[in-house]
């Protein structure tokens, strides 16, 4: 069964003083893979600046624009029609626990997946937290463990946008026990990697019809590698597996590789930015869009 979604990403920035020069980059395009096809994309911006693209280090398209025309408001919109296919979930028992581990411990496998096994600012977890972290039991399959980890992170943390920010690390999340989807995901990544399971950060969109946590803005979840199967998405914020309701934009080692918007501007005053998304199956999108984008704008 196939579902067609209309995905809209919109950002609105206002500046106290005129901006004299600006360069913006967006990583908001839905990507193409086995389970999703991008049917159409349209881009627009309030400056009528020409946009251009290049692939990021992980092969995902980045949209950029540069302008020297002075402005004090800036709007950018990406609209895409994405066809999402049914996704397949892992089946237990294809490989034995020993075979799984042999693959994960293999040197060449490590080299190929090292970007998803390393520890950096976002994913490093202090030794003091190690004893309380879930670790894979000797007879537990990778998939079994990851599902347990997904529930563990979901139950450990409370969804709260207040205490954390874009730079919050897994260590801080463990201390605060609160956070948003980005924080849930970094903690999941850190623990999975401690178990030598390659795990990557995913940024994308969530069907808003289900009223799940994190669907008002761009969502984040994790993809972990299951030997014998491949990459499977886990959403610790909602304790769900990523399925046909999850529309992927990019993946990377952590948030730093996936941040949706980056910009360098030349101006003196303060700025105010807000952005929102709208994600709906196409048949109901026509009337829902208007209202939803308004109400889901985050200041």
């Amino acid at each position, binding site marked *: 069964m196939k579902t067609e979604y209309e995905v809209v990403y919109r950002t609105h920035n206002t500046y106290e003083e005129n901006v004299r020069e600006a*360069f913006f980059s967006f990583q908001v395009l839905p990507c193409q893979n086995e389970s999703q096809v991008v049917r159409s994309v349209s881009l627009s911006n309030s400056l009528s600046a020409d946009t251009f693209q*290049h692939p990021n280090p992980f092969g995902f398209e980045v949209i*950029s624009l*540069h302008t020297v025309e002075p402005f004090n408001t800036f709007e950018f919109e990406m609209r895409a029609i994405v066809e999402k296919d049914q996704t397949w979930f892992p089946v237990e028992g294809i490989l034995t626990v020993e075979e799984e581990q042999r693959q994960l411990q293999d*040197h060449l496998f490590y080299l190929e997946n090292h970007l998803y096994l*390393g520890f950096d600012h976002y994913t490093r977890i202090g030794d003091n937290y190690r004893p309380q972290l879930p670790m894979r039991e000797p007879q537990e399959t990778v998939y079994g463990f990851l599902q347990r980890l997904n529930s563990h992170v979901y139950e450990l943390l409370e969804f709260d946008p207040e205490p954390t920010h874009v730079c919050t690390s897994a260590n801080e999340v463990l201390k605060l026990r609160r956070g948003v989807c980005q924080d849930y995901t970094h903690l999941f990544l850190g623990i999975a990697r401690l178990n030598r399971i390659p795990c990557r950060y995913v940024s994308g969109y969530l069907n808003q019809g289900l009223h799940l946590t994190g669907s008002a803005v761009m969502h984040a979840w994790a993809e972990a590698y299951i030997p014998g199967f491949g990459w499977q998405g886990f959403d610790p914020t909602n304790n769900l597996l990523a399925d046909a309701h999850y529309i992927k934009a990019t993946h990377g080692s952590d948030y730093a590789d996936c941040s949706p918007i980056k910009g*360098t501007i030349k101006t003196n005053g303060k700025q105010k930015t807000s952005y929102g998304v709208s994600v709906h199956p196409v048949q109901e999108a026509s009337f829902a869009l208007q209202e939803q984008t308004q109400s889901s704008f985050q200041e």
Partner: protein
Amino acid sequence: MDAALRQNQSNGILGNYQIPPQFLDEVFMAPGQVHPHYQAVYQQFQEFSKEDFKELNEHAKMSFFNQGITFSVYSDKSKGVERIFPFDLFPRIIPAQEWAHLEEGIIQRCVALNLFMQDIYSKQHILRDKVVPAELIFSSKNYLKAMLDFKPIGGIYNHISGTDLIKHSDGQYYVLEDNLRCPSGISYVLSNRVAMKRILFQMFRQFNVSTVQEYPQELLATMQSVAPKGIDAPTCVVLTPGVYNSAYFEHAFLALTMGVPLVEGRDLYVEKNFVYMKTINGPKRVDVVYRRLDDDFLDPMAFKPDSMLGVPGIMAAYKKGNVNLLNAPGTGFADDKAVYTYVPDIIRYYLQQEPILNNVHTYRCEKDDDFKYVLENMANLVIKPVDESGGYGILIGNKATKEQLAEFKTLVTENRRKYIAQPIMNLSMHATFIEGEDQFEPRHVDLRTFTLLGKDRQFVLKGGLSRVALKKGSLIVNSSQGGGSKDTWVMMENGAGMFMHQNGSTEQSMTMDGQTMTMGPQGMSIGTEGTMSMGKPGAE
């Protein structure tokens, strides 16, 4: 002994010279007896009286101030103070044969390191074969994801390398460091030569010293050789972080001597993945950038997001092949201290050759034999943790107390994987004029060399920066910590070379590689026996 010489020995600037007992002296073999390649220069210097030489030394200082060759010091007290890098008039001399060996070794090392970087950013064969441990590379903050599966134009990463060498008391050269990011110091090499010629021209012209002033043209040719495809006359620029950078003089100097624009990040912008320079005649496309800016600051879109010094979007333009950057981003993992110990293995792996230049021998405590040696000889070794930099956690055996030695024995035994040990290197010493004492004294020196790799071209500058630790007994040669420098003379092979001669009349002759060119009122002739001549029409 004639009277003049006797007077020199008592009053002269070299009279009281004490040869260091435990170090190699570059100039002297025994009191009053110098190595053959220093003989001629030594004789000239002996003729100077203290007063003469002090005056020459003042001239040299003024020459640097007048050329504006200064550096700024970062420390709080003297913020913004411009200083000159002290210059010593006694040149360091390297015989042609000795240099030929060094040059071969430096090229070998730079080429192997380039292949290493190419491999690490593509198939990682050397990691698959476990010649270099993968964790060592992946944990380096200078290993950049942005460079993975990307090959720069011409396949060159370290277009400009600064290989640091020292001469040990065993008379051999050792590589101390490979600088593959933005090695600096070349402007001093060129200005030292200018100062040398200004102050002691009569002396300088008698020697067959290899030239250094072609460096800027060689650098420009290197840049042009790696221009984006289809660009016949590439626009090259030097990108500087700005006037507050300690090496700003050098950035300006190189731009000026190459005849290319000196730009800051704000002078460039990226539009549709091409780089443009803002000029009074409108935008001008830029093809090759010699950037003297660290990776972190190069592009706020790709690296440090708050960098105001870089050019947003330049990495994307680079990876599209629309601009080239020298050096390539991400070279820093390869000149890491921990990787250094593997360079001999890296050379063998990629070139199937034995390394020509010595690495300082490194004992890896994880190996049983090495571990045993380290424990027994700790007082004569430097012990370093492999994963730390900036000189933390280091033990210098001959300066450590008994307690410290015992403490390190426990540390190393508990974590053998974490420690390496190296012999304490004795930097050679060179006669250097010491102000205040007003005489020559031995001081430690090292040598920074400069190598250029371009597409199908390699160049090692025949010369370099001999840095001198001016403080007595000090081994620290850095300019910010009381270091100075010397002109470095790489001698030409006998026979090859150029002599100019004016025979008192209006005729000048020049001999080059055995051929003589004569210019005079009778016209110009070239050749050993006048085989070719271009005389004035109608002349005899």
